[in-house]
């Protein structure tokens, strides 16, 4: 990504970032777009399936690289200087990311996707000085991984229906309940938990947020095995977990506002399609080779499906360009990121099913042939893409209500006490 000529400070920032990266990392060899069929790892992964020792090494490498960034002032580009940031714009952040993408550095997603991208800004916005001093520098220096203790078995799309309780206990709180679909909990030192503190208030108004020490007694983290066979996520059981009151984030019963800050910082998967093994597998060059290798390049029906998919993939990429261009021009973000997320999930799903059709019966069982059974991994991962980070239905509600201004569902009760909603069964609805 070239720097914008209208920003003189940006040129200096780019030069500084370039010097830092040159000194601390090696440039990636140019990755050819050309696909050599039958060569390379026969895996099409979306979710990690690393054995524990490999995963532990990756987490250690991620923490170490974040430390290097932090020590050179690139650890928290948009953050305030008193907590280790350098107070630059989101555009600087984007520019740095695109520069770093040219180098071979460890993937720091385990730190950044949840902790640095969502929890950090939430603590910054709602935390006491003491909480901010205690956790923010440690997080952005790569020492502390944070997870998000939001979803529950009974509170998915309807997050405000959560029932994990926090009750006063002397100068602190006792937490009791169950969280689910918690990414990176097994590596996390802290978690941001939403708990019900007053069931007699309406459901959005009786929730409080806490920073929980994940090593505290009563925190039980269990891997949640998903349909792919791997265990990317966790269930977190909280049994009489004591949290000091100074670890409360925001006012008592003011947790919904805290949650909204976190969710607003949920970075849309803009540009995500190009990245990773799954993105490359459903991109045109690889799918074309798949057709060729299977003698289907003259099959008009297969070509048509390939072309339809490619058209939508390219257009989604253009949508991301447009969003980035607007962002750089200082315009308010439009609905692009929500649309992009919908399209991304649909395109990846279509790609997996197209490949499955081409591979045919050799997808049913592992014949050992390269480029066949490997598709099962992606095929089994794609349903999650239309659920995680906001289900497709919720994303469409958001587009319809916030962008188009259509009326909300009249049945959503924001006034009755939460306790009564539960009794009438409406909390689960």
């Amino acid at each position, binding site marked *: 990504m*070239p720097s914008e000529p209208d920003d003189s400070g940006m040129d200096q920032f780019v030069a500084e970032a370039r010097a830092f990266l040159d000194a601390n990392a090696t440039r990636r060899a140019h990755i050819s777009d050309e696909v050599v069929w039958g060569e390379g790892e026969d895996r099409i992964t979306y979710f990690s399936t690393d054995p524990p020792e490999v995963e532990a090494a990756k987490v250690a490498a991620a923490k170490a690289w974040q430390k290097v960034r932090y020590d050179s002032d690139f650890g928290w580009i948009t953050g305030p200087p008193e907590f280790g940031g350098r107070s630059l714009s989101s555009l600087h952040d984007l520019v740095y990311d695109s520069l770093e993408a040219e180098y071979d550095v460890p993937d720091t997603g385990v730190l950044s996707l949840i902790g640095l991208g969502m929890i950090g800004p939430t603590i910054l916005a709602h935390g006491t000085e003491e909480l901010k001093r205690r956790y923010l520098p440690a997080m952005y220096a790569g020492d502390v991984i944070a997870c998000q203790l939001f979803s529950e078995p009974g509170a998915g799309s309807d997050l405000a229906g959560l029932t994990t309780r926090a009750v006063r206990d002397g100068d602190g709180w006792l937490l009791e309940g169950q969280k689910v679909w918690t990414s990176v909990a097994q590596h996390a030192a802290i978690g941001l938990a939403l708990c019900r503190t007053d069931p007699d208030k309406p459901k959005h108004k009786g929730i409080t947020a806490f920073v929980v020490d994940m090593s505290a007694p009563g925190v039980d983290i269990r891997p949640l095995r998903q349909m792919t066979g791997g265990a990317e996520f966790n269930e977190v059981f909280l049994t009489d977990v004591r949290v000091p009151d100074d670890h409360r984030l925001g006012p008592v019963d003011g947790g919904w506002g805290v949650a909204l800050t976190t969710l607003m910082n949920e970075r849309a998967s803009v540009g995500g399609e190009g990245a990773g093994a799954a993105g490359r597998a459903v991109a*045109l060059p690889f799918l*074309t080779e798949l057709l*060729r290798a299977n003698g289907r*390049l*003259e099959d*008009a029906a297969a*070509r*048509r499906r*390939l*072309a*339809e998919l*490619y*058209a*939508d993939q*390219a*257009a*989604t990429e*253009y*949508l991301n*360009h*447009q969003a980035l261009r607007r962002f750089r*021009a200082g315009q308010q973000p*439009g*609905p*692009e990121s929500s*649309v992009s997320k*919908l*399209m991304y999930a649909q395109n990846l799903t279509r790609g997996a099913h197209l490949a499955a059709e081409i591979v045919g019966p050799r997808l049913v069982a592992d014949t050992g042939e390269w480029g066949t059974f490997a598709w099962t991994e992606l095929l089994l991962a794609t349903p999650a893409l239309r659920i995680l980070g906001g289900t497709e*239905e919720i*994303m*469409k*509600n958001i*587009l*319809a*209500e916030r*962008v*188009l*201004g*259509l*009326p*909300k*569902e*009249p049945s959503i009760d924001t006034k009755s006490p939460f306790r009564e909603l539960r009794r009438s069964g409406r909390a689960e609805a």
Partner: protein
Amino acid sequence: MSTGTGTRAAAGTTRAEASDAELTELRTAVRDFLSSRADEAAVRAAVDSERGYDDKVWAQIAAELGLPALALPTAYGGDGYGVVELSVVIGEMGRVLLPSPFFSTVVLAATAIVASGDAGAAERLLPGIAAGATTATLTVPNRAGSWEPATGTLGVHVTGSGSGAEVVLEGTAPLVVEGGTADVVLIVADSPAGPTLYEVDMTTAGVARTTLRGLDLTRRIARMDFRDVPARLVGEPGGAAPVVARVLDVATTALAAEQVGGARACLETATAYAKERMQFGRPIGSFQAVKHKCADMLARVQVADAAATEAARAVDGVPGSPDPGVATAVAHAVCSEAFMAVAAENIQVHGGIGFTWEHPAHLYYRRAKASQLLFGGPAVYYERLLRRAGVRPLRTA
């Protein structure tokens, strides 16, 4: 649009370039004009008129707004802007389904003349087009319905061994956009040198032209029968292929903008109706089944808008834009599909009222399907996209 514009060298010429603010200003000016002169009643009146469009509105578009000149070269009376600016204008016209010779004259014919590199033809024709005095069109009468100018597939040919500047044409062009009223017709015909571009002056030549009953009521199509019709060479003998290729890139991109304009109008109409139409004691837009339909329409429109915008930037050679060959093919496919889907869903959101003749929904549905098929349709545009993206063509093709 002559104030404070930058210029940029593109394809060996200097092209004027509007800033974002100027594009917005242009959009507003065209929208304001069309909202007063081309509301639904005016569009319906034009549809029922003999020519199929309102002559007075066309004259005002040229004289008051100067739109035909916008993207023509400055050497021939134009303002020298590009497809980015042209797309803004076309998008607004698409929004109201303006019946007009603008697309056939400015997008099809003028682009062909410029692309032919024929200075004489440009001198003869472009100033009149820029001023709105001349209407024109282009046809590539491929019998298979695509716009591929391939030898042996064209319905019109040069008689005898004529290959000079003046020839005689014979044959039929079955589907000519605004062919019933155009003053000048540019036509790709088979000649001994291969497919070649010719100019036929409709004010003198005795061509039989028949306006056909059309699916799209807001864009007229005519059949032209050529019997010993004198025509004049444009460009080089046998030189039609690269000209048509350029026209298709520009025209599908402009069409994409027009489709996005039409699709956005459908989305807005459907959304407004979903907010006001009450059933079961509540607005139908509060039901998720309807709400999600509208969200799907919005998603399609956003993606199509991005595809059309990037394609226009790519054709104009804006730095950082994608490969124009791929981007134009992407835009043509995605915007064709999006407009069709959104125009169809618009009728569903409206229910019974949307199926009436009085409601404009069918006018958009008609335009959506006709423009999707104008340059050959899905069978053609998906294969073109694959070819542009580097996938080996079908051996049988």
